[in-house]
């Protein structure tokens, strides 16, 4: 069973994606299923480690928090860009020691930090687990330390580790 469906979540998501992009019909359902199975095999050949999601219930909470955070930082970065040159804004590099180590949670954290304007992922050192970020407004250093360590990290650990 797991040979046939190495990544069931990925395959089901791809079928849904396929049906969303086309109109629902039996033919498209079959075609989409075949394609998603092939994609599942291809993915497991490329990347054999299987992501384990331990707590599905934390995912909507993560998405909700991220949604609000994106609105907040959009407003902040827009304001800074419009007052650029007058506000005395300085950018900075910050180093955040991370507790999460699994590739999946790091990948999701990278997506979160990139989707949120104002933070850019620069470097992660596997040996020390320290993440280097570039932040647009150095005045928010403490805010980002706090958000990453106290909001996103616990949620990601709950979901993946």
């Amino acid at each position, binding site marked *: 069973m797991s040979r046939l469906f190495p990544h069931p979540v990925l395959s089901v998501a791809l079928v849904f*994606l396929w049906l*969303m*992009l086309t109109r629902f019909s039996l033919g498209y359902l079959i075609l989409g299923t075949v394609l998603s199975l092939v994609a599942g095999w291809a993915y497991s050949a490329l990347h054999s480690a299987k992501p384990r999601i331990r707590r599905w219930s934390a995912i909507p909470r993560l998405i909700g928090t991220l949604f609000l955070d*994106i*609105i907040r930082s*959009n407003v902040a*970065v*827009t304001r800074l*860009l*419009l007052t*650029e040159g007058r506000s005395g804004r300085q*950018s900075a*590099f*910050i*180093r*955040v*020691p991370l507790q999460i180590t699994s590739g999946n949670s790091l990948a999701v954290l*990278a*997506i979160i*930090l*990139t*989707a*949120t*304007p*104002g*933070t*850019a*992922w*620069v*470097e992660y*050192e596997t*040996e*020390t*687990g*320290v993440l*280097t970020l*570039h932040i*647009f407004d150095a005045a928010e250093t403490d805010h980002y*330390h706090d958000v990453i360590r106290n909001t996103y990290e616990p949620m990601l650990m709950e979901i993946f580790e």
Partner: protein
Amino acid sequence: MSPLATVPLIVAIPVAFFVVLGATLTLIGALGFARLTSFYDRLHAPTLATSWGTGATIIASALMFSFIDGRVILHEFVIGFCIVLTTPVTLMMLGRAALMRDRTEGSDALPEDMRRRRDPAADTPAGD
């Protein structure tokens, strides 16, 4: 023009609001990209376009065409999903390429302690 003429005001107003919001954010992001001087600062400006710039345009499009077709249309959210998933790949690659270049050149765009990759053995991971 004919399908557009049937859209009532109550749908047209939110659609217009989201289109203008998305377009404005994208424009501000593009202007910021042009005006900022450091490479690392420039990484931040386009994320306005890839977050709510895209998001608001998608919401407007989904509202509008769901109303015109009389069924729920969610294609646009697939676009948003793909943009959210793929942007980090590009931005991380650009950021890391810039870091590597600046380290090789010993550029003063980097703070003193970042000019060389830390030696893990000598490093004590303190709370920054």
